[in-house]
């Protein structure tokens, strides 16, 4: 089940360096888009391999007359094969932005295409849906929005039985959803939420992945917390999403990735997280985390970080809910295996995707902050040393590591006994020497707790020239009060 994505990814035949460069450019563009709150992506479903084998012809830009001719043939051709071929040629042409523009401004073109979409001939219908899909993928709003007259039919077909067709409808809807709020304002009254809630019972993995994609596009919308999430939570979708995320032989990576992101968008909007906890969200996500951690040890390069990231976020944010804070009961997360899983994932991120380390440490903070049991697990499973090994990664990571250590230390002498003697103090000498105010500040906090609950550590601190290290910061406004307080403690012990 964790054998990686079946099929979709294929190495493109070009130089690795060129690929990397292109990826960096795209990454920069995405970062910029995110800061401007314009982060949207679309997916394209295209059977290129099949087409290469079939035709071997390169798609060319179509002019008005050609488009008209193909449409006429598709409508009135004498033979079905001929009509289908006309639509295939049209669709190939529609892969070009120029053809798309020509197409949408052509009188009656969309109407004809929608007519073919509702055609009584199954293959024409499928081909018409592929044409619409090409249009829905366009970066130009006018092109994608030209597909709007088709949405009521795309939604109707979701309750059909042809899995390939439903998948295509879902990806097309998913692309249209992110186009504008106006599109979503049409899709909601047309019943997209109940339609998805009915469709999610499909046994086909391709349909489920496409559905997860479309739903995640819907939930990402700016107006989602007010306009969309309440009706999603009011439907049967949340239970089905949690069911699809339950570990077991039926779990599929591609499907789980999409639904884990759906859940993240729901949870971080904080509309009614108590409902998700009530449906067993915490325990499902906890078990899923164990499963992912087990899988990263067995499989190479399956893209598991894509799933781990939203799962960490969901767990972390759910832990801040009041329903959890109360404590006790079956909806709690108390299994210490979660901590073991988290460390295995931290090691995996360190090798594979260090940018995800902060998210993992954020969960570790939320687990340990209010739980003496998880803090004890950290000590009894000998996890302090591996945690300290993360300090050099970055300042952000350092601050989070130090915060987790503070969570442990603030629980009192029994906990600090396990922190000193040990490798903690030498590491702290390193972080105290940092030039980053936040890293030093958090180190001072930890030092105070350690001196308070483990006075013997002061001696060792002095021996390691701790005072000189402290002196470096006595001029810094944000640090000097704490530096002075610690100097006083050290000298008057």
């Amino acid at each position: 089940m964790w054998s990686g994505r079946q099929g979709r990814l294929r190495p493109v035949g070009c130089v690795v360096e060129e690929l990397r460069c292109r990826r960096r450019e795209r990454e920069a563009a995405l970062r910029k888009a995110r800061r401007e709150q314009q982060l949207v992506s679309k997916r394209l479903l295209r059977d290129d391999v099949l087409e290469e084998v079939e035709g071997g012809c390169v798609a060319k830009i179509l002019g008005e007359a050609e488009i008209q001719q193909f449409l006429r043939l598709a409508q009135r051709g004498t033979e079905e094969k001929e009509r289908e071929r006309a639509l295939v040629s049209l669709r190939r042409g529609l892969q070009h932005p120029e053809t798309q523009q020509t197409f949408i401004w052509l009188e009656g073109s969309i109407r004809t295409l929608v007519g073919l979409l509702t055609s009584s001939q199954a293959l024409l219908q499928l081909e018409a849906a592929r044409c619409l899909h090409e249009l829905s993928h366009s970066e130009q709003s006018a092109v994608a929005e030209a597909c709007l007259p088709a949405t009521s039919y795309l939604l109707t077909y979701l309750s059909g039985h042809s899995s390939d067709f439903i998948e295509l409808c879902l990806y097309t809807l998913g692309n249209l959803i992110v186009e504008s709020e106006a599109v979503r304002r049409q899709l909601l009254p047309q019943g997209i939420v109940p339609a998805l809630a009915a469709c999610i019972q499909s046994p086909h993995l391709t349909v489920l992945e496409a559905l997860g994609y479309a739903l995640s596009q819907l939930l990402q919308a700016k107006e989602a917390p007010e306009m969309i999430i309440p009706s999603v939570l009011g439907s049967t979708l949340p239970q089905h999403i949690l069911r699809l995320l339950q570990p077991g032989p039926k779990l599929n990576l591609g499907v789980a990735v999409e639904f884990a992101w759906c859940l993240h968008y729901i949870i971080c909007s904080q509309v009614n997280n108590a409902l998700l906890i009530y449906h067993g969200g915490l325990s499902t996500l906890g078990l899923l985390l164990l499963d992912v951690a087990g899988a990263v040890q067995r499989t190479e390069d399956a893209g598991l970080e894509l799933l781990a990231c939203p799962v960490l976020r969901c767990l972390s944010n759910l832990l801040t809910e009041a329903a959890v804070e109360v404590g006790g009961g079956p909806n709690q997360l108390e299994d210490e295996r979660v901590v073991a899983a988290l460390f295995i994932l931290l090691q995996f991120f360190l090798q594979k995707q260090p940018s995800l380390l902060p998210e993992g440490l954020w969960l570790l903070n939320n687990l340990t902050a209010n739980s003496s049991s998880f803090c004890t697990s950290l000590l009894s499973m000998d996890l302090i040393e591996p945690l300290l090994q993360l300090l050099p990664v970055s300042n952000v990571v350092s601050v989070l590591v130090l915060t987790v250590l503070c969570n442990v230390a603030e629980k009192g002498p029994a906990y600090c006994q396990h922190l000193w003697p040990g490798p903690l103090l030498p590491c702290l000498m390193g972080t105290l020497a940092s030039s980053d105010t936040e890293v030093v500040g958090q180190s001072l906090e930890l030092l105070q707790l350690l001196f308070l609950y483990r006075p013997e550590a002061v001696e060792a601190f002095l021996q390691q020239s701790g005072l000189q290290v402290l002196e470096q910061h006595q001029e810094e406004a944000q640090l000097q009060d704490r530096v002075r307080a610690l100097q006083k403690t050290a000298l008057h012990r």
Partner: protein
Amino acid sequence: MQLPPALRSRLVGAPGAAEPLPVQRDPAAGAPPFHFAARRVRFPRDHEFFEDGDVQRHLYLQDVLTQVTEAPERPRVPEFTCQGAGCCQVFDTLEDYEHHYHTLHRNVCSFCRRAFPSVHLLDTHILEWHDSLFQILSERQDMYQCLVEGCTEKFKTGKDRKDHLVRRHLYPADFRFDKPKKSRGSATPVATVQVLAEALGDDGEQSGGDAMEVCSEHAAPLPERVGERRTYSHRIPSTICFGQGASRGFKSTKKRKEHR
């Protein structure tokens, strides 16, 4: 990062929580000038903390986008004909056949051979077109169900429902699966329908199960092949259905009794 070897066995071990060590806090901890307090942190969706993860997610979406390929192998099979009664479509892949089957032979009205994209639309069609009680009942109560799945509203007339579909659900006025019963193909008001009717003008020839077209012109006498089918159908009681794809009349006899 070196993890203790025992960690892996803990992962696959039994669930359980550690017996916590005694917690004993000193009020001096975190007292000014110090300010540490252990607390859980929440991040909202737009927080910059999520930037890296979000960018990875979208790179993934777009990767799939530029590299979506490797369609599952579609094995070619020798050409074969659809076995559906009165249907002579020829296929060379199973997927095409499957789609054809689901579209044309799955939700079929046994009275007029029309196919519908969903059970809900088929049920509504049978009720409104072929249930003699429907007309009688609809004079007394609202019987026209909304066509949008999940909407439970009912209306006095088909026109009221159409208004509702257009106004409440933003459906197109010429929604294809909601054709008024009496309309003639040529008399339908909206141009699109004419385009469609033209587009489908040749269809009658090829399939008896003449699909989703609900216009009356297509309800006209069916071609020869269907007659052929009827020769066997008269020997089979109408209540017997073969397989899921078989055409269907009323939902169940029980329901019919309820109407009476």
